[in-house]
């Protein structure tokens, strides 16, 4: 009887171990590399500046929703780190907000970088508002004098559309399991580990509505001089408004 009990226990644990091994993400999955996006890099006044666009943060549906009358927020975070290491050398943040005025039929955009001044603009088209909100144009990311020579660096970037605050996310997570309307299970113990599976379909709730992540090409700084910057990007042309292409709108510092 004892031998039989032991064999059952070992069999159960081996089965469990096999399940665990199958369920666990493989190292390849965990280390899935970010896509690479060519990024403009230049040193100016001792600052490393980057230029890259994240216009793909807006798909057709997101673009259409810009005219909802409520604000659309964009958060872009970039981090500089050594290509061979894990440590973040420095980081920078750009936030933007777009609001469509349903009476004037114009888009208001405001952009701020880190603790810098707020830039506001009123533009005519959705495309132009997206460009203003998602383009990183010569964004200072690091003090170049603090970067080590002959070390390869890489810039990691992440853009979030309508990111959710931590407080709201905490509320959302609570509502998900303890939903409104008092729909708690009656008589069910709140077993901490007990439930093997509780199946429901989560609604589309993540920490932002849409996300873009990528990394730049690796680069040295100095002595390798950075690639020359391309010409400054221009706002996309305004459909149906010949000659409006590149109009920067009314900007105030």
């Amino acid at each position, binding site marked *: 009887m004892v031998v039989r009990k032991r064999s059952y226990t070992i069999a159960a644990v081996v089965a469990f171990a096999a399940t665990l091994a199958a369920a666990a993400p493989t190292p390849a999955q965990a*280390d899935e590399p970010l896509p690479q996006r060519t990024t403009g890099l230049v040193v100016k006044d001792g600052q490393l500046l980057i230029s890259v666009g994240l216009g793909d943060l807006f798909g057709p549906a997101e673009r259409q929703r810009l005219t909802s009358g409520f604000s659309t927020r964009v958060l872009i*975070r970039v981090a500089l780190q050594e290509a061979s290491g894990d440590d973040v050398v420095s980081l920078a*943040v750009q936030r933007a907000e777009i609001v469509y005025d349903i009476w004037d039929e114009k888009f208001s955009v405001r952009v701020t970088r880190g603790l810098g001044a707020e830039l506001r603009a009123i533009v005519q088209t959705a495309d132009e508002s997206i460009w203003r909100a998602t383009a990183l144009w010569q964004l200072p990311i690091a003090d170049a004098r603090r970067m080590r020579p002959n070390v390869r660096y890489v810039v990691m970037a992440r853009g979030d559309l309508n990111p959710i605050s931590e407080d709201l996310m905490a509320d959302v997570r609570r509502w998900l399991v303890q939903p409104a309307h008092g729909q708690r299970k009656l008589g069910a113990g709140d077993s901490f580990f007990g439930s093997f599976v509780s*199946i*429901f379909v989560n609604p589309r709730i993540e920490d932002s509505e849409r996300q873009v992540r990528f990394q730049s090409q690796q680069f040295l700084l100095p002595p390798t001089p950075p690639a020359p910057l391309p010409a400054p990007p221009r706002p996309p042309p305004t459909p149906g408004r010949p000659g409006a292409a590149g109009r920067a709108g009314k900007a105030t510092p």
Partner: protein
Amino acid sequence: MAAARAPAFLIALSLFAALRTSPAARAADEADDVASTATSAAPFQDARFGPRYVIDEVIVRGNHKTQKSIIVAEVAALGLFPGAAVDASDPRVETARYRLLTLGYFLDVRLSVTRGVSRGGVVLIVDVEERGTVVINELFPSTSAATAFWGGADVSETNLLGRGINLGAGFVASTTPVVPGAQSGLGLRLRAVVPPIGGPYGLSLSATVLYNNGSEFQRVMGAADDADPRNFIGAPVQRAGGVLGVGKDFRSGLHATLHVREEVISAELPIVAPPPVVDFMVYDGFSRLGSVTAGLDVDTRSDPILPRSGVRMALTVEAATGLLGSSYDFFKAVAEGSFYRPMPHGHALGFHVFAGAIAGDAPFFDRFFVGDLNLLLPRRALGINFSTQPSRNLLDTSIAHHRYDNYAGRVLIEYAIPIWRRRGFVYGGDAFVAAGLFGMASNGDAVAPGPFSWHSLPIDVTGDLGLRLDTYVGIFTISIANALSRSSF
């Protein structure tokens, strides 16, 4: 006994070590954390941006099944109703969207405005995309030496008739246990919860109907740690009744409940010959149980599935009395608490406490059961026990003598390591290890015969080790305790 389990824990520990976060993933997480901190330090100087509107009317679109009043009430609870002012960048708009999404009725929700009757006035439009609202709450497939198989499910329709009514049903059925005199088990539950009256912070009503037809196993011979089903005798017990309840959510996060339970119990207690002293903890023939239960629950956890910080505390007190027609007079109090503390690298430390006491004469199904306390044993399914397994007795104590008791306590410490955070099918996953102590006792156990020895204490070690996954289709826990408790021999 302990030697037999050593390989099991070695295997599990080695797997646990292999599942630690890779350096690259850790670096990415750290970068996100740092960037997140920087973000919160650099908000817009003026939170308000864009025009201010006055809501003329609220229109709901896309609700083919869900009643408009449910949606309008949720939005109105956040102050978005006709006559109210709202900014274009008002955070209540986003909160309303997520509040509606978490009802579970919709795949997507969007809020927008169109021009109202005059400049500044708007029509607030709530566009919803409905989804299927049947959910599986729990599955019960298990096996033990006493019962070859028991299984079942708990399923809910969360938006019955589009009125937000939650109608749930659960069942569990078993093969005939090999315990002499035992019958196959069947447990049924039917429950309904009506949305709060007058909005999300009103009173919600609930009702549950229950039927159990099973056999409780009582030892008549053999050593206390011998789980051989032939050492037990089955006492067929039927229960039928219901629970009526009222609940209320408060804005502070507090949830309060009050339930009244009435049951009829029919037991056919076997005659044991030669007669050992067997307490079946239920009256022979017909009896009744009537009780009232009050509960308080407060939850500030950062995440109910994979928490990193916060507290969850719950307190319930139940009184069964002849005033409610009960044949059983008892008072039961249960307090539970979980406390989480963030640790470096996104890890989390959890501290869980449970304490319960019963004074009086409670039937066995209302007493504290060892399987509900020890994670390594099968717990009751819809209130029915299908196992004769005693506690594992890893400390060589008197715990094997204890199955149903009036006092119970448990302390658990848990350490969780995030191994998976990303978009896709699996939102997140934690590897976790937990260990703790639990104890059970009844009146009279406090005075042990002979000199004191800790071996006489009715305590044991419990714990778990595994993965907890938050996925698109639900929450999965894959762990040693799950494996052992569902195949208990």
